[in-house]
């Protein structure tokens, strides 16, 4: 059986520094998988390696059986893997609506290409964005900016959504709202990979998890079965 997204023996160097070593992860349609780890554990490097922003030194990235290793980010996005980047990356000179539409444009889609993702559907999902659609993207609150970033990624019509630290700097109620929406999308068959420092949040929303430590997977399993002590050891490399 082929996995939707499979990362095999992925190793990544920045110059001589080893950022990722022999990473093996996979994700299927309709699940939320969490990658947790402390600052510097290699989580963002993993996203960069999958999306082609940092070319891996060895290993492979397979998407629907197709080899995407060393592809350009734009091709990865067009293939069906979208990123909600760390820090949201809203473009200040574009309005809220333009920021969202950019997702459709970069994926080479148009109004008529039959993508299930339209502005109307986005505004159903996040009504507040419709109210503020004419404002500059950066005039919105952190949580709303995160909604723009998610919407922009959805407009590329992805099969897999990679979310880099979406809870960072947001209030717990906002985080819950965002994850509730992601859960709805997953029910419709989307695969979501969340990268989080916030261990408990990540475990509570995901069905499976991978814990990273110093560029390697230190522990993995079902989130519901996760033993907190074992996860903490895998997270920090020692008991706390």
């Amino acid at each position, binding site marked *: 059986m082929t996995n939707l997204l499979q990362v095999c023996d992925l190793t990544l160097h920045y110059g001589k520094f080893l950022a990722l070593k022999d990473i093996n992860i996979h994700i299927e349609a309709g699940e939320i998988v969490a990658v947790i780890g402390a600052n510097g554990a290699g989580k963002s490097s993993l996203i960069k390696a999958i999306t082609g*922003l940092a070319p891996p030194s060895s290993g492979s990235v397979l998407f629907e059986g197709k080899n995407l290793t060393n592809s350009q980010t734009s091709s990865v996005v067009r293939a069906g893997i979208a990123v909600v980047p760390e820090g949201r990356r809203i*473009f200040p000179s*574009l309005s809220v609506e*333009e920021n969202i539409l*950019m997702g459709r444009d970069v994926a080479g889609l148009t109004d008529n290409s039959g993508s299930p993702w339209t502005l109307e559907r986005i505004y159903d999902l996040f009504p507040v964005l419709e109210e503020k659609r004419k404002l500059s993207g950066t005039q919105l609150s952190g949580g709303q900016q995160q909604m723009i970033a998610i919407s922009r990624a959805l407009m590329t019509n992805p099969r897999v959504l990679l979310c880099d630290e979406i809870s960072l700097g947001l209030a717990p109620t906002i985080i819950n709202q965002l994850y509730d929406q992601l859960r709805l999308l997953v029910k419709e068959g989307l695969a979501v990979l969340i990268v989080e420092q916030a261990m408990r949040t990540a475990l509570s929303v995901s069905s499976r998890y991978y814990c990273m430590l110093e560029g390697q997977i230190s522990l993995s399993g079902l989130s519901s079965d996760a033993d907190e002590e074992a996860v903490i050891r895998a997270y920090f490399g020692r008991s706390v």
Partner: protein
Amino acid sequence: MERNHFLIQLFFLLVVAGVFGVLPLFVDNGTMRFLTDFFLLIGIAQLWNLLAGFGGIVSIGQHLFLGAGAYAFFAMTSILGIHPYVSLPLAIPFGAALAVPVYAILSRLKLAYFAIGSWVLAEVMLLLAGKIPGFGGGSGVSLSPSIVKTFGTSIGDRMSNIYWLALGITVFIILLIIILLQSRHGLALKAMRDNETAAMAVGVNTVFVKVLLFLISGAFLSLLGAVGTLLRLRISPAASFNITDGTIFIIFIVVVGGIGRVIGPVLGAIIFLVLRETLSAYGPIYMIILGGLAIATMLIEPKGAAGLFGRISKKIRNAG
């Protein structure tokens, strides 16, 4: 960009073009020459702004394409015997084709190295231009009278025709840029202007966009270089590949007018010409003022005159 905004821009562009279009019927040759210069400056500055203001490509060697366009025009008309009105549009594919190897070399360099590399390439081309047989060596060569006369037998006719050519080409370049900004690549371009790394992270094909911009810029600079030759009536390495006129003043125009905005180069060209007309008699003081103004703009209002006008009009609107 919203559709209405696009239509307003289009309307203004066509009205302004129309007004300037009928001017040759009323003004003297000196004024026409001055305005032709103005159009050429705007055209060249628009293309530099397209690269630096949107694509983040900072080249200080774009005069390479102006010079190459001028030499190509001379070669086509005087050596190959192609009709001047056919040679002019042929300067476009020539410039685009030249942009391919130039970009292939420069794209391996980053930021400051790219800028310096572009300058060095342009200087190499200048030196080469002086060595190719048939182009008059270091002192250059004049266009033959028969070629010049294709554009009009009297000075007045010729000046009007060159005026209309420069106006038409510059309007076309501005039109091309606003259509590009309105197109599917428009949002990607503005996103790249905001933050190139972020644009790449969300899937903008930054490599494709940069190549596209460099080709457009090279193609039309080559055409503008050919039209500039019609004003000067001769080609020579020093004048055709002139870094001061073709790049340094252009950077001034874009920076002072407002980088990353289509109106910027227009405002910048007006400011530049006003300063040139009033101060150029003072020699070095003129250059010092130009340089000082450019640095002051970067420090105080990096968005230039366009940014300043935007701020003032916002204040007026808020007050009203």
